[in-house]
């Protein structure tokens, strides 16, 4: 807990070092059937090692698109994304993704095989070493008893835990999580958030986490990037609160972020008639 509190101080020192992930002036566009949509406009941010970095914004602010760009699935039309100094050009196992959808596990492989698969196909480990590492991370997400189950026999929360174990077992430079808990029920979601924090305490991995829930952002994040919608632009970059922050502090930050997002919602109806 103490180390978490110190995080802002460490940050001051670390800013001068090269960031793990540098996003510089990134503009992203994608084509729908009859529109060219600008998803984000000149977004800048830095993710440092062991950050729990949150991309927060209402739907349509391009946060998922931004995550996909970091994942290497799309190229920015302007600006650049660098991981450890090297530009990101294509998807790769150094940036493991955890998706929102439950169907991200390979249905034809057991839990153990699912976690082993990327380890093996990256060719880094022998079969035995991969199996050991897979079981280690499956134990971390409390699924050892289900190692030989096929994904379709698991609940949604368990599937997401396998996906997280799979991502972590690769020990990627950065773990990319695209609203991984959004499709879960409220009780399971809260449990998963606690588990994720416990896992982070153990290994202090770097995670880039997309969400549209303000309480989730404050709970999980160490640093929060606030994006405005249509197209996504950086509105603010805030430090989150340590996990032992008082309820009043949390409420205050929640309201502060809420009012920033709410400001947009008020502006819109005023701006709309002017266009029409």
């Amino acid at each position, binding site marked *: 807990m103490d180390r978490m509190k110190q995080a802002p101080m460490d940050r001051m020192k670390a800013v001068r070092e090269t960031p793990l992930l540098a996003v510089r002036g990134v503009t992203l566009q994608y084509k729908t059937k009859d529109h060219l949509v600008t998803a984000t406009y000149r977004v800048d941010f830095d993710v440092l090692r062991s950050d729990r970095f949150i991309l927060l914004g209402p739907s349509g602010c391009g946060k998922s698109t931004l995550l996909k760009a970091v*994942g290497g*699935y799309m190229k920015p039309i302007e600006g650049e994304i660098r991981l450890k100094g090297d530009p990101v050009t294509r998807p*790769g196992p150094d940036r493991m993704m955890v998706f929102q959808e439950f169907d991200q596990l390979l249905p034809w492989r057991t839990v153990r095989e699912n976690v082993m698969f990327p380890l093996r*196909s990256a060719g880094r480990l022998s079969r035995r070493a991969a199996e050991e590492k897979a079981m280690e991370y499956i134990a971390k997400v409390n699924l050892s008893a289900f190692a030989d189950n096929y994904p379709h026999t698991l609940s949604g929360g368990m599937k997401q835990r396998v996906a997280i174990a799979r991502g972590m077992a690769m020990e990627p430079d950065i773990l990319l999580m695209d609203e991984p808990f959004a499709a879960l029920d409220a009780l399971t979601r809260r449990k998963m958030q606690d588990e994720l924090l416990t896992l982070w305490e153990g290994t202090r991995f770097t995670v880039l986490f997309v969400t549209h829930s303000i309480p989730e952002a404050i709970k999980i994040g160490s640093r929060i990037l606030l994006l405005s919608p249509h197209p996504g632009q950086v509105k603010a970059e805030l430090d989150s609160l340590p996990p032992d922050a008082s309820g009043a502090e949390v409420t205050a930050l929640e309201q502060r972020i*809420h009012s920033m997002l709410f400001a947009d919602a008020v502006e819109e109806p005023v701006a709309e008639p002017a266009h029409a």
Partner: protein
Amino acid sequence: MPDIAMETSTVNLTNAPAARPEVLREPVSSASFGIVEKPLSMWERVTNQGWVRKLALLVVLGVVWEVYARQLDNPLLFPTFSATVTSFVKGIFGGDLFAKALTSLRVLLMGYAAGIGCAAILTVVAITSRVGTDLLELLTSMFNPLPAIALLPLALIWFGLGTGSIVFVIIHSVLWAVSLNTHSGFLSVSNTLRMVGRNYGLTGLRYVARILIPAAFPSILTGLKIGWAFAWRTLIAAELVFGVSSGSGGLGWYIYENKNQLEIPNVFAGLFTVIVIGLLVENVVFRVLEAKTVRKWGLQS
């Protein structure tokens, strides 16, 4: 939590129902309500087996055949079930039915395997390039409606009387059905799974083999089943047209020959063999394949 507080403050609560007392209860011990979990009866467990139900149906069909044929009492038109089975058993153990069936199966497997091989090449080309997709769509819409038998005269000129011609028409009948199903299976693989595969750094053939093929396996299996049925039909039809070659004709030729000699129970025995092999392949080979793959993976219930 503050969002909720803000919302409720604006809601008018004056119409809310009157306050009610709280209800707190202890769950009753499960001993007091009869069944929590009880094994099913023997009858229920037996009838839950698909093969038992199918076997029962087969017996019923056999009895209906027997009764009808006995009433008709005309072995030249419609021999009884028992006569058919007798000549089937005689044909298998004494006659040349077994050899004929083997000949047919050998040619069939050759054509089937070659057809699947061609389909694999065609679909891999189709998913790796847009021109390939266009080519596959064009070729299937051109040749899929073309009956394989219609190509037989041409095949006879190209490959002569013999196995070559039959294998050619079987390839034609298998190729398009399997390609169409495999390709549509590849197209329906969920975007998340594709992204997962690319996230692992898989590209090219490794991506196809490790992600696309297993994910599309339900469709591929359907294609294989349809292809198998098409291959059988084409084979028997082709053998009926010519089996004269090299004296080693297959089942189709056996049926044709026996019809000419008015050995109608033998004709039925030949047809019966086709049916039995079809039943076995569908209910044993494909069923086991299904149980080991798509059912185990929960892709199909």
